């Protein structure tokens, strides 16, 4: 009898990445990366800026294709899907962009209603109830008539979160959900990610470089550096790691395996030269 394939609908693994290499603009972003994400858990993917975290989310959502390797989500090989199949898969996943990516010409209510209007034919009264319930979940039912330009950064991200869960997806990917937020908003977003994961039973993938907030809500964490997995485990295990790279990232040290200086020639020679 065949064993259930990793990433298959009946497996505990929702996302399975095998030996993925990816180059963009002549630069190799991912170098033979292999890891998996468990169903129903909050998994953190941490790493410095430019380490390839967001690229991974784009691979899961089929917005990028790997040069080599496999990307399997819910049993389907994402790079091999036809456009229609990819769109069917995307209906079951949500990506919360760093900026929120709200439609600036639509009100808060209409932003949240957008996926329902596009994909279903619910009556206006049911649609209204669904939208208000999701807005209530993120605490913004009272802000439904505001336009995105009238929202603070934290509020915009909460509206985007309400829009992300309105179709009740199997997984939500959060791209830098804490960046640029004040401590209160960070706490609110962290609480929402954790609560939604439990109440809706969805799989959450949090891509971030905010160590304390991310560690406080995740069940498992991967640390990415130089296009590879350089550390993994429960947040407590990652924080105890002795690896130089992990220590530099977790402790926020300016010097370490990741150099402070961008590669350059000899300093004195450079100053003496007249070239720009």
């Amino acid at each position, binding site marked *: 009898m065949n064993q259930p394939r990793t990433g298959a609908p009946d497996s505990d693994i929702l996302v399975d990445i095998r030996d993925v290499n990816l180059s963009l603009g002549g630069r190799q972003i991912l170098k033979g990366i292999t890891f998996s994400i468990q169903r129903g858990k909050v998994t953190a993917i941490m790493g410095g800026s430019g380490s390839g975290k967001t690229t991974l989310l784009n691979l899961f*959502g089929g*917005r990028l294709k790997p040069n080599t390797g496999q990307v399997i989500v819910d049993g389907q090989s994402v790079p091999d899907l036809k456009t229609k199949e990819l*769109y*069917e898969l*995307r*209906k079951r*996943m*949500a*990506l919360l*962009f*760093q*900026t929120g*990516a*709200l*439609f*600036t010409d639509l009100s808060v209510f209409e932003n949240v209603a*957008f*996926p329902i209007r*596009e*994909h279903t034919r619910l009556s206006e009264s049911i649609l209204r109830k669904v939208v208000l319930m999701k807005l209530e979940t993120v605490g913004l039912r009272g802000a439904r008539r505001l336009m995105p330009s009238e929202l603070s950064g934290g509020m915009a991200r909460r509206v985007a979160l309400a*829009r992300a869960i309105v*179709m009740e997806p199997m997984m939500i990917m959060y791209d830098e959900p804490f960046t640029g937020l004040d401590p209160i908003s960070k706490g609110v977003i962290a609480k929402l990610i954790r609560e939604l994961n439990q109440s809706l039973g969805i799989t959450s993938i949090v891509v971030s470089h905010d160590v304390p907030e991310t560690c406080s809500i995740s069940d498992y964490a991967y640390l990415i550096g130089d296009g590879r997995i350089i550390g993994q485990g429960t947040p407590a295990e990652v924080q105890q790691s002795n690896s130089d790279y992990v220590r530099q990232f977790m402790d926020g040290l300016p010097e370490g395996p990741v150099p402070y200086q961008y590669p350059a020639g000899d300093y004195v020679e450079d100053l003496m030269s007249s070239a720009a």
Partner: protein
Amino acid sequence: MNTLRVLGAIVVNSVERLGRASLFLYEVLLSSWELLRRFYLVVQQVYAVGVLTLLIILVSGLFVGMVLGLQGYNTLVKFGSANSLGLLVALSLVRELGPVVTALLFAGRAGSALTAEIGLMKATEQIAGMEMMAVNPITRVIAPRFLGGVIAMPLLAALFSAIGVLGGHLVGVGLLGVDAGAFWSQMQAGVDFRDDIMNGVVKSVVFGVVCTWIAVFEGYDAVPTSEGVASATNRTVVYSSLAVLGLDFILTALTLGEV
């Protein structure tokens, strides 16, 4: 040698871009069928692209008609044919100035706005967000704007010509004393529906397709930064204006059968 290489690169890039723009248009046209059941999206864009451009079109049309009235009268009166002023104003507007000036104004006002809007949607990840929500941005964002522009252009050109004729009447009949009956009757007798009006309509439809195509493509293809959106907007106005003037010559030559 280096110049040759640069020249070659420019040609290759231009051809590649034209190819991409053509595939993009094909995709937009395919998506347009789906809008038949959601026509309200197109109506919204006819309002945004057409109705909001109305003021500049009407004011420009009035002044162009008034200038035509003045210039036309000054020339015609030398030959004792000032009564043909209505015919001159109407033919100039319906055949040439209506479609061309409307298209140039449309490129400057609505085309640039379309490019900037779509470019900024891309820069703020709204387009990517839509794709991740399993909504095709070509169907939801681009095709309604394209159809809105194509529908709005001939209507705007017709209004431009109509208000221009009134401007010519205002100056010719109201100020310079041309006989009102002669003004209208010469126009009625001299303007042919098929040869003049329909040719003008064909021109404005072609200009509508080209200007809106350039505007939506430049927006969708823009580099998603503030500088990228600014240069895309700039390209929309320049390419649309040049395309309109070039196509006008070709269409005029074809309809007159002189070339």
